[in-house]
């Protein structure tokens, strides 16, 4: 053990009663390879508290029917619970109106909805779309598909060696052809928190709408879409202690109304004849077919759970974990942290000299420590930092300082095996 850094007992750490919180997460009691699970892959997917699991069970055992369809009691209950979940999400991100909150299957689906609904209608040949080097493939590939279809061009904001966007370069990319900006709030690969409020204001000064990929931000900090003034904000339920297969697209009502539907089918129409179909109002225009009702209700329960702890307390505790882990790991010889932005979320991508990330992942797993290894669906980031892949520890509010110690001990063991 390193005695220069003992786990700090910050106020934040005590504001977040971690031991009590951990008791809510049955999966955290697991042992992996005979060791207590140390789950540090929260950026890929977070775990569900019993409260969310119970809510899913209650829905499935006593409330399930299809929504928006029948007059029978169960259908009315299911519809009410589904719409109540929408209001919970609305308040969670402080959207002005509930119809601005669209249920999707996740961040990827949300971004594709904007690409089809907004991009295919409004982006034309010769137009330019601004993205950043940090983007997840989910916020690159749909725009490449659109650019190819329309003859539009993608311009990319570069980053510095710390993994921070070069805002001067971003501003220089704007011209009269710029028609859309897509940028992530928090980098899944490096943890960088981007100055999106400033970037949004700059784009708006040029009359350009902005989509924010908030997949990694919403679970870790208070997000207020009105304060940010973003036009679109996308995120996933499964990174937010909710179920997989559910996500959110927030969009400003005025924009959503001008967009074309993404998918056609039931629930998204007002009337259908073979001559003409009239689309439903938002949000239903974008929710064709039977939605993931249980997922939406489960996600509603997840944001209730998070709100009860408090996003500020969550952010503070995660910051304490990040600071502690960064202090420990930056002292280790042969360990390099990739992504050293001043403003970071609790994600640490790292490399160990002479050891491939896959071997790191396998060896840490033998110690019960779950980290992600690979390119994190952000190959442009890997290319920028000249690494084929990294290992990534990503923290949640239920992680502890002792788990940081387990990670550090695991890394020491990797170095020993490969010495």
């Amino acid at each position, binding site marked *: 053990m390193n005695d220069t850094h003992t786990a700090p007992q910050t106020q934040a750490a005590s504001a977040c009663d971690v031991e009590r919180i951990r008791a809510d997460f049955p999966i955290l009691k697991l042992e992996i*390879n005979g060791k207590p699970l140390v789950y540090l892959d929260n950026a890929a997917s977070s775990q569900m508290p019993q409260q969310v699991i119970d809510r899913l069970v209650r829905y499935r055992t006593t409330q399930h029917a299809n929504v928006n369809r029948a007059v029978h009691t169960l259908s009315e209950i299911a519809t009410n619970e589904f719409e109540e979940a929408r209001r919970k999400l609305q308040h969670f991100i402080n959207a002005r109106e509930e119809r601005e909150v669209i249920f999707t299957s996740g961040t990827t689906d949300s971004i594709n909805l904007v690409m089809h609904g907004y991009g295919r209608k409004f982006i034309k040949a010769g137009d330019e779309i601004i993205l950043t080097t940090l983007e997840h493939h989910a916020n690159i590939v749909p725009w490449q598909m659109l650019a190819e279809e329309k003859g539009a061009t993608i311009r990319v904001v570069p980053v510095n060696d710390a993994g921070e966007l070069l805002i001067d370069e971003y501003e220089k990319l704007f011209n009269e052809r710029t028609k859309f900006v897509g940028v992530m709030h928090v980098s899944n690969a490096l943890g960088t928190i981007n100055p999106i409020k400033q970037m949004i204001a700059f784009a708006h000064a040029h009359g350009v709408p902005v989509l924010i990929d908030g997949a990694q931000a919403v679970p870790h900090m208070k997000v207020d879409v009105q304060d940010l003034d973003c036009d679109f904000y996308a995120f996933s339920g499964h990174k937010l202690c909710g179920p997989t297969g559910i996500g959110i697209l927030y969009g400003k009502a005025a924009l959503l109304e001008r967009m074309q539907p993404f998918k056609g089918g039931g629930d998204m129409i007002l009337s259908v004849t073979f001559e003409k179909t009239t689309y439903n109002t938002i949000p239903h225009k974008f929710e064709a077919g039977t939605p993931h009702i249980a997922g939406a209700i489960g996600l509603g329960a997840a944001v209730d759970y998070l709100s009860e702890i408090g996003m500020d307390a969550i952010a503070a505790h995660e910051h304490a974990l990040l600071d502690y882990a960064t202090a420990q790991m930056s002292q280790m010889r042969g360990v390099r942290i990739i992504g050293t932005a001043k403003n970071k979320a609790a994600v640490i991508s790292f490399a160990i000299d002479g*050891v*491939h*990330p*896959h*071997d790191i992942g*396998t*060896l840490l797993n*033998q110690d019960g420590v779950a980290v992600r*290894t*690979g*390119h994190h669906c952000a190959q442009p980031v*890997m290319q920028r930092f000249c690494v*084929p*892949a990294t290992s990534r520890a990503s923290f949640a509010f239920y992680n502890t300082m002792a788990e940081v110690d387990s990670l550090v001990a695991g890394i020491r063991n990797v170095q020993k*095996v*490969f010495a």
Partner: protein
Amino acid sequence: MSDYKALYQEVILDHNKKPRNYGTLEHPTHHADGRNPLCGDHIEVALNLEGENIGAIAFQGESCAICKASASMMTTAVKGKTRADAEEITQEFLAMATGKRDLGSLSHIGRLSVFAGVRDLPTRVKCAILPWHTLHAALNAVESTSTEAENDPMQAPIGDA
């Protein structure tokens, strides 16, 4: 004994650190590029067939220890062997790594048995077999291969990585 020792044995760590036949050949008669797109592993195998015999063989690339050690030990195992022998060892290696056959039923594996442990680590099987896929591709004049290719030349079962 903890599990990782079963996989990260001395021999594997040694071949990772000091890979044999590492590099390229000037004018190889056969060459192929192997990739695992899921993890970014990349291996190039080059060899000279002299008649039916593998004269020289070399590999290089960017990969994890399991893949590199497997490639290194593969080159030493097949060097000087006939093409048919090399293919037979390849088949046995794949059968061992994917858990299709028990060690006892394999006659050409020898020291390569140190890789038997990957069968218990589905996410790492591909790391061990990528060099062998690539060798097979080279011997059959396929320029590039991928563990995710639909026309996977080895048709080895590929677990979800």
